[in-house]
């Protein structure tokens, strides 16, 4: 493999200029050859005929063939037609293939018109948004219809799927939800204690913890974890089935994918979410109580007794009212995005991201609405 690098020599013979190429004209020599060829210029009084002799080429690949062709074309454009002579038999097929490819018409990038493109984008975006809302409304209708069907004929409910999803979205969520809620309780108590100690009102840490956790934080943590854990899983599962054409197969078998896939997931999450929220509330309070004991020496009995003062029945129920609504939103968005997956595996990833972002966004917006609603109802 000690091959001679490519070279080009010129011999002037009477009226004929003989350009001899030799050595290896390949990819590894291409950079040097390309600069060397660009430097080749013909003198002021060019000879009548130019011949390009390829007889001494040791190796040739597509890049070498391309460089030779570009060189020949340049000389031809400058008014010096070049005759290629002495091509070795093993190089004929390659030269032929490459030179034919060079003759293919060059690609032209489409002309850019910024204003027109912008208008086009706005138009496309609006139409897409319209189609999107139409699809969303029809999906909502289909789901409600399927839910009603299942409620009228409970035997149509896929109990196995329901229990499976309750297990996966509920039971298996407990460890991570418990850990995070406990830590949130700890952090809240810690921050509250710092501030309230300055007012010598340490005991009110309990009020702070009780109200904020039971009314807002417990359910929000639950909803965010469930959206990230189960909402995304719904999108990925249904999306993968869509890519595998399983959804199409269901339709051809006369099965309703909404009833088979969406309804069990929605019902499972709606049943499980209040339990998860209750669990998160209790563990967060436990975290708060632990921290209060460590920092402020408020023991468990004091904590519970103090809790009774600001908290009434409805405070404890707020999370239980919000939970099924949030569950419905998370499951609906997760399944909807899953059904929107089109064709490629890439689309599954995109839709999953979208599903999590959308459901968390909706949960927080809805939470704000609930605050107003409860205010009006004096709950």
């Amino acid at each position, binding site marked *: 493999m000690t091959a001679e690098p490519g070279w080009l020599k010129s011999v002037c013979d009477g009226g004929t200029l003989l350009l001899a190429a030799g050595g290896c004209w390949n*990819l590894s020599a291409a950079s040097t050859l390309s600069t060397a060829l660009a430097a080749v210029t013909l003198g002021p009084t060019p000879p009548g005929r130019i011949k390009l002799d390829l007889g001494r080429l040791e190796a040739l690949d597509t890049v070498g063939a*391309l460089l030779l062709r*570009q060189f020949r074309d340049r000389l031809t454009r400058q008014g010096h037609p070049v005759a290629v002579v002495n091509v070795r038999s093993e190089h004929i097929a390659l030269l032929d293939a490459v030179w034919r*490819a060079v003759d*293919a018409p*060059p690609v032209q990038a*489409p002309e850019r018109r910024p204003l027109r493109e912008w208008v086009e984008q706005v138009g496309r975006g609006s139409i897409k948004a319209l189609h999107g809302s139409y699809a969303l409304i029809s999906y909502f209708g289909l789901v409600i219809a399927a839910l009603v069907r299942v409620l009228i004929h409970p035997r149509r409910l896929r109990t196995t799927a329901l229990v499976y999803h309750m297990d996966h979205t509920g039971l298996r969520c407990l460890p991570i939800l418990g850990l995070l809620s406990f830590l949130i309780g700890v952090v809240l108590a810690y921050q509250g204690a710092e501030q309230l100690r300055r007012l010598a009102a340490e005991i009110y840490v309990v009020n702070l913890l009780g109200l904020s956790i039971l009314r807002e934080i417990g359910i929000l943590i639950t909803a965010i974890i469930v959206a990230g854990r189960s909402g995304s899983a719904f999108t990925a599962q249904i999306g993968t089935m869509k890519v595998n054409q399983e959804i199409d197969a269901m339709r051809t078998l006369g099965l309703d994918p909404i009833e088979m896939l969406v309804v069990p997931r929605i019902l499972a999450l709606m049943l499980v979410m209040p339990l998860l929220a209750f669990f998160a509330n209790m563990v967060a309070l436990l975290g708060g109580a632990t921290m209060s004991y460590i920092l402020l020496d408020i023991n468990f009995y004091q904590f519970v007794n103090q809790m009774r003062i600001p908290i009434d029945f409805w405070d404890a129920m707020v999370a239980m009212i919000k939970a099924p609504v949030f569950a419905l939103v998370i499951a609906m968005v997760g399944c909807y995005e899953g059904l929107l997956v089109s064709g490629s595996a890439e689309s599954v990833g995109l839709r999953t991201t979208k599903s999590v972002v959308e459901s968390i966004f909706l949960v927080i917006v809805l939470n704000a609405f609930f605050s107003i609603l409860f205010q009006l109802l004096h709950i």
Partner: protein
Amino acid sequence: MRMDNLPSFIVAPDIVLQVRGLVTRFGGHTVHEGADLDVLRGEVLGVVGASGSGKSVLLKAVVGLIRPIAGHIRVLGHELGILSDTRRIALQSRCGVLFQDGALFSSLTVAQNVAVPLVEHTELSRPLIDEIVRVKIAMVGLPADAALKYPAELSGGMRKRAGLARALALDPEILLLDEPTAGLDPIGAAAFDELIGSLQQGLGLTVFMVTHDLDSLAAICDRIAVLLDRKLLVGTLDSLRQETNPWIRDYFGGPRGRAAFHSRS
């Protein structure tokens, strides 16, 4: 990119790819057990075998994507298992691989896909790279306007052609193809066979082709390797048709095999 200073083994110069005693295993399942294979310079070798017999695994082992449990794989005289990473990458750039559905980078246009190996592994100027890319795209028979399209906008056959252009970007000596005609209609498959045949002739390639397509075997393969009972059995079409093994007999002598080989003769 030069390979001159690599430790090389003494093998016959015209064997570009040598497999000796290959053993691969996934979990408890042994895929290959003592498989041997020689691929000669300038030939087209087809690899056939039942579904799940480990054809694609063999291809992955040969290009260094998976490490065999035991055995030697020598590519262009270099033992894959003992090469350093940089040398293996240099060696891999002398082997072009076409995956089943092209495996194009979905975020890049066809032209950018073909340019990737040239940009990463050579110091060529941008205009020269663009020109090389244009030539390669034309050589695989894609229309010029396909260069600016994204893989998602192409049909399956065009994606394969674009993948082939990328595999050929660095002018490899060996071209490895994983089921090149799977999923193409018969006309597209025949055109693709013809393309591979003409490129192999024109560029002097050695082709290692995993395939299920009896027409491809009949049309362009010089020799055929059959994966059978975790070993490789190599022969020409005619010699394999004399084999008494029931699987080989069914494969080449079944109605589809007879039709494909009849049309050839």
